[in-house]
């Protein structure tokens, strides 16, 4: 077993790093989704015309 680990150490390290990166991306995307961000990362507040957006239906609720 130990010999196998030593022989495949490079593969194990690379695979572990890759799995960690993929897991991190998935967790970040889930969190972003919960925050209501789109997958492109473009937030309404980053848009130059954000103050121009309005919705009359929502005004009545305010």
């Amino acid at each position, binding site marked *: 077993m130990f010999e196998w680990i030593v022989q495949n150490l490079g593969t194990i390290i690379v695979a572990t790093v890759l799995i960690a990166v993929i897991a991190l*991306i998935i967790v970040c995307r889930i969190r972003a989704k919960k925050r209501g961000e789109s997958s492109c990362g473009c937030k309404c507040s980053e848009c130059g*015309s954000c103050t121009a957006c309005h919705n009359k239906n929502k005004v009545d609720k305010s």
Partner: protein
Amino acid sequence: MEDKISIALAGNPNSGKTTLFNALTGSNQYVGNWPGVTVEKKEGALKNEESVTVTDLPGIYSLSPYTLEEVVARNYLIDERPSVILNIVDGTNIERNLYLTTQLIEIGIPVVVAINMMDIVRKNGDTIDVNGLSKRLGCKVVEISALKEDGIIEAAKVAIEVAKSAKKTVKHIFSGAVEHAIAHIEEITVHNLPEDMQRWYAIKIFERDEKVLAQLGIGEETLSHIEHDIVACEKEMDDDAESIITNERYEYIASILKGVYVKKNEGKLTLSDKIDQVVTNRILALPIFAIVMFLVYFISVTTVGTWATDWANDGLFGDGFHLLWIGDGEYNENAENYANSNTVINGFIEWSESGGENLDLLKDTINTENDYFDAENAKTALQTYLFSLPINAVASYTVVDEETLQESVETATLEDLKNAINALIGYDFTEPDPASYGVWVPGVPVLVGNGLEAINCADWLSSLILDGIVAGVGAVLGFVPQILVLFLILAFLEDCGYMARIAFVLDKIFRKFGLSGKSFIPMLIGTGCGVPGIMASRTIENDKDRKMAIITTTFIPCGAKLPFIALIAGAVFGGAWWVAPLAYFTGMAAIVVSGIILKKTKLFESEYTPFVMELPAYHMPTFKNLMHTTWERGWSFIKKAGTIILLSTVIIWFLTYFGFTDTGFRMLAEDEVDKSLLAVVGGFISWIFAPLGFGTWQGAVATITGLVAKENIVGTLGVVYGVSGSAIQAISSAFSPAAGLSFLIFNLLCAPCFAAMGAIKREMNNWKWTTFAIGYQTIFAYAIALIVYQFGLLFTGAVNVVGLIVAIILTVVLLYFIIRPKFGKKEAKN
């Protein structure tokens, strides 16, 4: 304990309010939303004055209840009652900006007027008597330049002083009849409210402001009583109440500015006016717009962007590059000489063989890929062949361009052959190695490959990283330079004020089709990303127009579509200059055609809504702002490549390199990818795209994965076509020009990425409408791509009769929908 002071920043849009807010608060900001609405609320502590809170109100022109921003701002001022209002007034447009000031003064909160852009006012030679204006308005007036941070600390200090003294402002007096009516209203309806607020409420009741009337809950009897006063005033002034107030405010502003504000070039055209005479000219406006947008895409995709992208694709994400191009010229010269020598020798052999000679032995001897290749034997064989040829031999042969696969016929003399053989002998039959010239930096795939080999990484994992992640993500990241150039130019056009003119120019055209120029704002934002573009459709008040804008906005190529536009332009059309501009104008034409078609249906039929917008003066954008905007958008693209695209490429790699074979489910060799899971899935749906010319499993899966993110089209093609070596060459041979154009058009116009579909669902707030929007986009894209491909085949001679008939029928149907009369017009006639 020191009392808390709250300063509210109020002003017109583009008056420099947010710049002032940032300068006053620095990094002490917190961003949220105004309660119950999606307008951003920014608050922050004043620098070095923690007890002073600064609130940035939305940019507004008045305190009317017509837009969300106006309602949010006035609710805050009336309900929260900040200690002082710091009213930012654009000094270059003082008359219109003071309109809001006259309303703010009536609220009964101390007001300090900060005249911004004083540096430009002085530069224009205009003068504003600040003390005189202060006396006439009855409030403190200060001069500032928010951009240069001149006078802003002083303005904040004055605001704090005024807040502490709670000094109320002198109020503007309306004409007798109006004041009479207002006095009556005050007496009857609002006398129980705090004295400071009574006048503002009374004026709003006079204007019949529905929100104020609802808020106060005035009884029917009182309402009819005051209505009598209002109508009497309206009869006397021969105008409606709201217009009376508006006119009197402007008259008041004109009266207080007399002698206080002197404009040097009164009546003369400013530089902006002169530019607008050309740019918004009735005849020239459209051609200028077309040229500008052509240049935007030409520069970003074909020239500057391409040079940088070629370096990124071939160098950084390819074999490598020469640092600072040292040795690059010498290497290219030698590599070209080596390649040309091979072409001449192979051409002569081809020519000899066409004459009936058998030269298999010679070809085998000079094949450097053979294990038993020997340079000396090759030299002897070539020289023997040279001497066997007649002295006046001239060979004519076909040459195929490796990238574009275009064929051309070339000729060479015996002297050319002799030089070619000598050149190859000189190179010792070995292709020049770029690493032997100048300072060679290996590319990312080479470095990663070497690293993986050094640590003895398993072949399957190396393949996943190199053929999957590096090939897929690298293919997308290689286009970052083009994306940055595009975003930089668009940011320049937005910041300098030209984009606002385009909305104005397009309004004239859109109006003819029943569309509003306001529809251009979502399109403009959509060139960066479709998601905020779709969200920007909220600015369109008319519900039917808004729905139409949501459906059509993503027709404009967003930043994510640029890589595959550039890929098709490079691989299928040999880097033709017209492909990228064509993509933009196809999107624009799709919007106009869809507007005409949809507007004639019952679902979208509505009256034209007038479009009013402010045309800001032209100005040179600041370098900092340009860089900031470009980087914000570019970084968003890079982040997506490192997250969504990376995940997608891992999945695509797995599906491409694994499949069921005779020996069971296993990893496939390079020549077995036709048995991959992706090939099976793609093959299952590829028939759908066969009438469009790309009915291959590769084209089908690239289109489907593009729904995750449009960059994925390039990432997927990079992986599935990269199996056999150069993805560009494989794509070039897989797509004919007609199929390439059809592939480009379908993927430009079809359903957008999932993020944009989510935005459509949020904005439509209805599944039926969302399904209709996505269905319309996809069917429209399919029809146009089919027409383009089938008619395109006419030029190649490979006509498909059934396909052509379908294309003709679709064209006729499309034309019918465009030219048919509007819904209801027939009924009206009858």
